[in-house]
Structures are given as structure tokens and as C-alpha cells.
């Protein structure tokens, strides 16, 4: 009956989203009066999950699963859910989890709600709030099947620490052969990703050209932030497509989003709306972004950004 949660790890370390989905699963388990079981694949110290409400960890150690494979991981989750008799399976909104969840839903004949932002408002019918229309609205959705799959939006629930302990149990699901084989992974390991970042620094066409991104990168570095851009910037080839955020690009759900020289078109705002705090730097006081932002500076990015970098460095030195 326990709530099952997929806790992602990378190179043997749990990702922050693992703790967030575990916290969410714990809240759901409390509502249902049950426990939380996590599934961890080739992860390090499973007991870490106890601090976020996990009671039991099914630990899979299998070198065939070193590289993420949706079919294989989905099969593992399906078998875990069946073994535990789980009625609720919780995943995150990472690229891998979003790849997995529909496959798990089909194999468990479960209804699936993605981009969920709150714990269930009701458990019978099981009703969750999810974002819809790319953050322009919310939708209350009931999941009507016996087993339910929930994909939790990033940064929507946060981390909730408890004083629990997690026991660990070896789990060896049978892994089907997959028709998809990973040939190579190309990933910058020294850069914060938009998906994981607490802070995102984003530049628009107001920055005039790719040669001016040095200050954006420097600001990002000072803040430990990821860099992003508006759609025209990636269409013009100033920045890689993977940095394009917005309704047709990547969603951003960071704690802080700093928009530099971005006008704030509806398609841009839709994608970044779920960031908690938004700062805009723009020469034009009429730019629509000012209506969507929490803090704004009307000014020239080429003056404001270098000053901001300098002030942040001083702030960091003082608070170090």
C-alpha cells in the first residue's frame, strides 16, 4: 500500500529533486495513512532519504542500468509498485522522469497527472492541482484509476525534513531488453543546468549580440546560476537552442529568475512564470516584463549588469 517514489541519482549521489519528490510522497502517505517506499538505482547512501520521510528504500544495483534507459527503468518501477501494492507512484518533472512516467502509467494501467504543484486536495476521488496552458492556469484533475501516477513540478513543494530513518532492501527486478541503446552522452558537467538551477540568469535581444554574453555568464557564475535566453536569441544562433526558455522552450521553475534585455512577451513569460522571484533589467519602462516581475531596474544592461556583478561579489565576500 505504501506510496512509491522514484528517487533519481547521478553518479551515485541523489539529486535534489529526489529529496523533493520524497518530501511530497511523505505528505501524500500521511494523508493516506501509509508509508513511503523509494526506488533508487545505483545510488549511494540510501539512508539519506530517511530525512525526507522515506521508510524503506528498494536499492537496485545493476551495472546494466548505469545509463538511463526508459524501458528498463519503467520495468523496475512497475515491479516495485506491484511488489509493494502501491496505489500511488510519485515521480519528478526531470527529463528522465517525464520520459518514464507515461510508460509506467500504461504498465500499471494507471491514470497519470503531470506538472502537479500541490498535495492532493482530496484523496477520494484523488484530486490534484496541476499547471495547464503552460502556466497560464491551473487545472484540478481527479485520477480515477486504482493506481495513480503523479509527476511533481519542480520547486513546487520544496524539501521537508523529518527525523525518520530509512531501511534499505536489495531489489533485483528483471530487466527487459530495450530497443533503444544509448551511444553517447554529451553533458557539460561543470555547468549548472536550467532544470536543476536555483537561480537562472537569462538574456534577450536587448543584449545586441553574442559577443555581449560575457557579462551574463559572469553574473551567472557569481550567483552559481544557469544561463538561459529568449527564443529570438537562440533562433539567431547567439546562444544554443538548449538555453531557449519559454512556452515553446524549456520551462523555468527556479527561486530567482533574472531577465536582462528581455521584453516579456506572453510566450516568454508563460515558460518562466513559475519561478518564485523575478527580476527584470530593461531600458524601456514600458516593457511588459515589468508587470510580471517582482523587482525591476529601468536601465541599460551594459551599465547595470557590471555594477550588479561587482556589488554581488562584494556581498559574497562580506557574507562568506
Amino acid at each position: 500500500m505504501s506510496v512509491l517514489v522514484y528517487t533519481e541519482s547521478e553518479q551515485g549521489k541523489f539529486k535534489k529533486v529526489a529529496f523533493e519528490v520524497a518530501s511530497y510522497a511523505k505528505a501524500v502517505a500521511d494523508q493516506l495513512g501509509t508509508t513511503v517506499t523509494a526506488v533508487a538505482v545505483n545510488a549511494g547512501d540510501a539512508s539519506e532519504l530517511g530525512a525526507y520521510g522515506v521508510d524503506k528504500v528498494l536499492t537496485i544495483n545493476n551495472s546494466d542500468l548505469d545509463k538511463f534507459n526508459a524501458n528498463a527503468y519503467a520495468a523496475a518501477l512497475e515491479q516495485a509498485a506491484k511488489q509493494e501494492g502501491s496505489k500511488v507512484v510519485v515521480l519528478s518533472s526531470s527529463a528522465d522522469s517525464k520520459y518514464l512516467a507515461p510508460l509506467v502509467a500504461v504498465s500499471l494501467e494507471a491514470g497519470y497527472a503531470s506538472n502537479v504543484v500541490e498535495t492532493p486536495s482530496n484523496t477520494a476521488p484523488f484530486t490534484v492541482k496541476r499547471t495547464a496552458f503552460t502556466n497560464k492556469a491551473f487545472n484540478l484533475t481527479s485520477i480515477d484509476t486504482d493506481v495513480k501516477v503523479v509527476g511533481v513540478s519542480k520547486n513546487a513543494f520544496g524539501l521537508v525534513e523529518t527525523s525518520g530513518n530509512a531501511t534499505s532492501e536489495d531489489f533485483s527486478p528483471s530487466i527487459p531488453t530495450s530497443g533503444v541503446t544509448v551511444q553517447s552522452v554529451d553533458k557539460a558537467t561543470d555547468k549548472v543546468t536550467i532544470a536543476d538551477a536555483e537561480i537562472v540568469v537569462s538574456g534577450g535581444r536587448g543584449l545586441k549580440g553574442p559577443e555581449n554574453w560575457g557579462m551574463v555568464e559572469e553574473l551567472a557564475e557569481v550567483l552559481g546560476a544557469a544561463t538561459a535566453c529568449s527564443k529570438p536569441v537562440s533562433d539567431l544562433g547567439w546562444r544554443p537552442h538548449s538555453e531557449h526558455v519559454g512556452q515553446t522552450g524549456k520551462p523555468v521553475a527556479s527561486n530567482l529568475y533574472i531577465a536582462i534585455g528581455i521584453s516579456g512577451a506572453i510566450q516568454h513569460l508563460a515558460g518562466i512564470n513559475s519561478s518564485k522571484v523575478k527580476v527584470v533589467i530593461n531600458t524601456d519602462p514600458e516593457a511588459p516584463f515589468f508587470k510580471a516581475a517582482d523587482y525591476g531596474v529601468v536601465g541599460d544592461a551594459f551599465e547595470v549588469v557590471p555594477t550588479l556583478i561587482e556589488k554581488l561579489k562584494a556581498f559574497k565576500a562580506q557574507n562568506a
Partner: protein
Amino acid sequence: MKILVCISHVPDTTSKINFTEGDTKFDTTGVQFVINPNDEFGLTRAMWFKEKQGANVTVVNVGGPETEPTLRKALAIGADAAIRVNTAAKDGFQVAKELASVVNEGAYDLVIAGRESIDYNGGMVPGMLAALTKANYVTNCISLDVDGSNATAVREIDGGKETVTTSLPLVIGGQKGLVEESDLRIPNMRGIMMARQKPLSVVEPTNASSETNSVQFEKPAPKGAVTLVDADNIDQLVSLLHNEAKVI
């Protein structure tokens, strides 16, 4: 190669989103509907296969008669035939089950869907469809090549990309990158004329069940006014971010 491109019919990205009937229904008044942007990239890649490697391209939508102009637009862009499964789309699972029946019927080699639709943002139809038809599946697909029955795809992952090899039958969830923005085609007069002659068949649904139910919509709470900081006083911004917003 037989390609099926799944087309979701969605409000134009500039649409203001409103609801009616006690916030239970999306208000379509004054809303322009378009091909879901992710599907437009997929359709354009399908046209590339047709022109460069030889392929037959069918587009499909699960929806009421109101989606036909969107399917006609896909025909005008160059698809050979269109299918509309005549039932309202209720949730991703139901749509995937209806599409699975179309896929099994037509024995398609390659199904191109979008990573997600921009209305419901489910991100679930292609994965469920792949699972239901036992096809291989790659999502967040930013590049796809097919050679005989083998395929190479690139998938965007958090912080990078991953190259995979797989084989047909294959379902992909596509997005920008599959083709570039500048490769997208606006239907020309000739395309629009030709689209009128192309078959758009309406098939009856299998009446698959939906597993979730939309209960109600809600709009985000209105935002408070922006706090402006003088460009000469950036210290204040740093202090606000630290003390008030507590984000640094």
C-alpha cells in the same frame, strides 16, 4: 516508410486563457487555434523524409469537427492524408488509446508526436502510445535519422544531450531541433488548393476510457506591483534579494 504525425490542435501562443461554465471549460471565444508548435517541427521533419528518402505522411488528430482546419493546414504544408478520430480528447491516456488503434490499423513505421502539447502540457501521449503499440520510444527528440529499419535519434536531457540508436517501429516526442525554426513552412496557395483534394477521413472512436478527469480550472493569483530599484542604487537590489526575497 509510412509516417504518422500526431497533431494536437491548440490555442495560439498569444491567447489569453479564460474559462466558462463555472471555470470548468476552456473559453474558446476569440481564440485562434494552431498546430501545436512541437508537432509543427515534427511535421516538417516528416516532409523532409518524404522529399529526401521517400515516405508517405499521414496526419492524425483525436478531436471534434472543429479541429479540421488544423488538419487541412497540415495537408497544405504537404502531408498526403489526414485522419480525424471523431471524439473529444478527454485525457492523454484516452487519446493514446485512440491513436494506438489508428497506428495498429495503418501499420505505420514511424510515429512523430510532440514532446508536449502547449495546452494541456501532459507530455504523455507519445510515451503511452509507444507502450500501447509496443514500439520503441524516444522523447525530447532534437534530431532523427532513419536508415532502412534503423534509426538514430538525439534526445535532450537535463544539461546536455544523448545520442541513441533504435529501430522501427518507433514513436518519438519531437521538439525544436528536429528541424530549425527557419525550416518551418507557411502553406502557399498551391498547397492550400491541393489540400482540398487530399483525403481527410473521419473514423469513429473505439470509445476508449479516460483515466483522469478535469474537475476545474483556476487562474493564477494576480501579481503585486513590481518594486523598482534605481539604476544608481544597485546595492538596494542586492539587499532586497537577500533580506526581503531571501533568494541569495
